[in-house]
């Protein structure tokens, strides 16, 4: 059985349907790319899975259990972590404290404080940030902030990681690094990853499968090369002229 099964997921905001009857499954151990142009409903799907928005209709089953409409903290405790497009660290805390905080709450406080520091150091090491970092977050650039965001999600000890726009705002070398990092997280920690991105290039080399969205609907599911060859996907990304 799939680790995460989304079926018939619909989310409406007033009269606007952001996500319309979306169904896809995530197998344990894979990296799934959730792609589509801006506004295609990728982040809304993430927010529904993570519990920030209650779905209008549909079901979300994680490890055999219905999680649609659970509160975000319960979903976090069940083993789903998510990062945000725009990193929002606590500016008045050090790097280590930022990550230790999510290690602490991610386990509902059922870990000792010393274990939290250890988990935080481990997560920082995983993303390649200094683990002895007592400095604040002020001097950090876009790439380091993205890493911190990832470390905070990892410190909650997820089995499924929802990574939102990890590449946005990075230069080309940093993108390659970030993609490599996700691959390593899967390999070393065995964490299943759903990766949302609107930049396709780097993602296509890392993911096992892709789900392509447009206007809140799934237009294709399959191997990356299927998507790259698909007329409809190319049209959505590059416009009708590119197909002809």
């Amino acid at each position, binding site marked *: 059985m799939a680790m995460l099964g989304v079926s018939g997921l619909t989310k409406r905001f007033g009269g606007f349907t952001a996500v319309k009857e979306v169904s896809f499954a995530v197998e344990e151990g894979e990296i799934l790319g959730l792609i589509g142009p801006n506004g295609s409903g990728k982040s809304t799907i993430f927010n529904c899975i*993570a*519990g*920030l928005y209650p779905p209008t209709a549909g079901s979300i089953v994680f490890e055999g259990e219905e999680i649609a409409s659970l*509160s*975000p*903290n*319960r979903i*976090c*405790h069940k083993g789903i*972590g*998510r990062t*945000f497009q725009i990193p*929002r660290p*606590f500016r008045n805390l050090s790097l280590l404290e930022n990550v230790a*905080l*999510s290690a*602490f*709450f*991610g*386990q*509902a*406080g059922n870990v000792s404080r010393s274990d939290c520091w250890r988990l935080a150091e481990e997560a920082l090491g995983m993303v390649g940030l200094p683990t002895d970092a007592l400095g604040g977050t002020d001097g950090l650039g876009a790439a380091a902030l993205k890493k911190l965001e990832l470390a*905070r999600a990892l410190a*909650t000890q997820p089995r499924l990681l929802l990574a939102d726009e990890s590449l946005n705002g990075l230069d080309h070398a940093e993108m390659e690094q970030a993609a490599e990092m996700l691959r390593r997280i899967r390999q070393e920690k065995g964490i299943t990853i759903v990766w949302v991105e609107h930049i396709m290039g780097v993602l296509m080399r890392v993911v096992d499968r892709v789900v392509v969205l447009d206007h809140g609907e799934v237009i294709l599911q399959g191997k990356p090369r299927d998507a790259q060859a698909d007329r409809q996907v190319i049209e959505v990304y590059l416009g009708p002229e590119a197909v002809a």
Partner: protein
Amino acid sequence: MDCHLDIFFLEAVLNGLLLAGLLALLALGLNLVFGVIDVVWICYAELVMVGMYGIHYAHKGGAPFLLAALLGILLVALAGALLHVLVIRPVLDSAPINQLLVTGGVLFFLQAAATMAFGIEFRNIGIRLGSVNLMDMSFAWSRLLTFAVALGGMLALWLFLTRTYMGTAIRAIAQDRQIMPLMGVDQRKVYLVTSAIGGGLAGLAAALMVLQYDIYPQIGLQFGPLIFMICVLGGLGNMIGGFVAAFIIAQFIAVGGSCFATEWGYAIAFLFFMVAIFIRPQGLFAAKS
């Protein structure tokens, strides 16, 4: 004007200091709730009034004062939690003006209910602690006790916020209410506990105030505006700012009242507040963004 730098002036300054302890405690509860939940309890002083009546009747019913005070604190803590569940939670996602209006509604409800239940008479718990004399100056024990207990209460809250799991969660969610639930913080529980603590602080203030003031249904009108002025002056939601603002305002009231007349003390305090707010609209201290 009758204002000299003499022993009476010093007495006024010291009495202002003692008053500041109480005002800081009152402001703390309101600031805590606003800082975490982002809702202003306009009816905060009315919760204090409920606590004062509770303590008064518990004491009259035979409970020793300490037990009555404890019951009063529990009563208002429960009232704070109920206020959150019944009134605040349903409007959490609506416009701030609606949140202000519903707690404003609770203010009038509590005042009217107290008037119906207890009448308009001034009641006094009848405990006289006497006063201490020091070099021609006189300080009521009730004020000294209030100051000490208020500081103790604030210290206890600080320890709770910095040393416990729930306290850390409260501070974290006050900073970023969207991210923290994703990291496993239960927002509903944090809000409920914060409301109960906010109520408990109002109850503690009530236990101290029954020793100094008469109890009547409109006592909230005497303190409510003062508490809001202090919170806004210190930067709404900023607990340290509220603490400092309480000391500033209390000096205006005490010294102004001593130099002119008591009413003038309040007038000068509010005048200072208006000027300060013109100059620094976000409060004297950096408020949360």
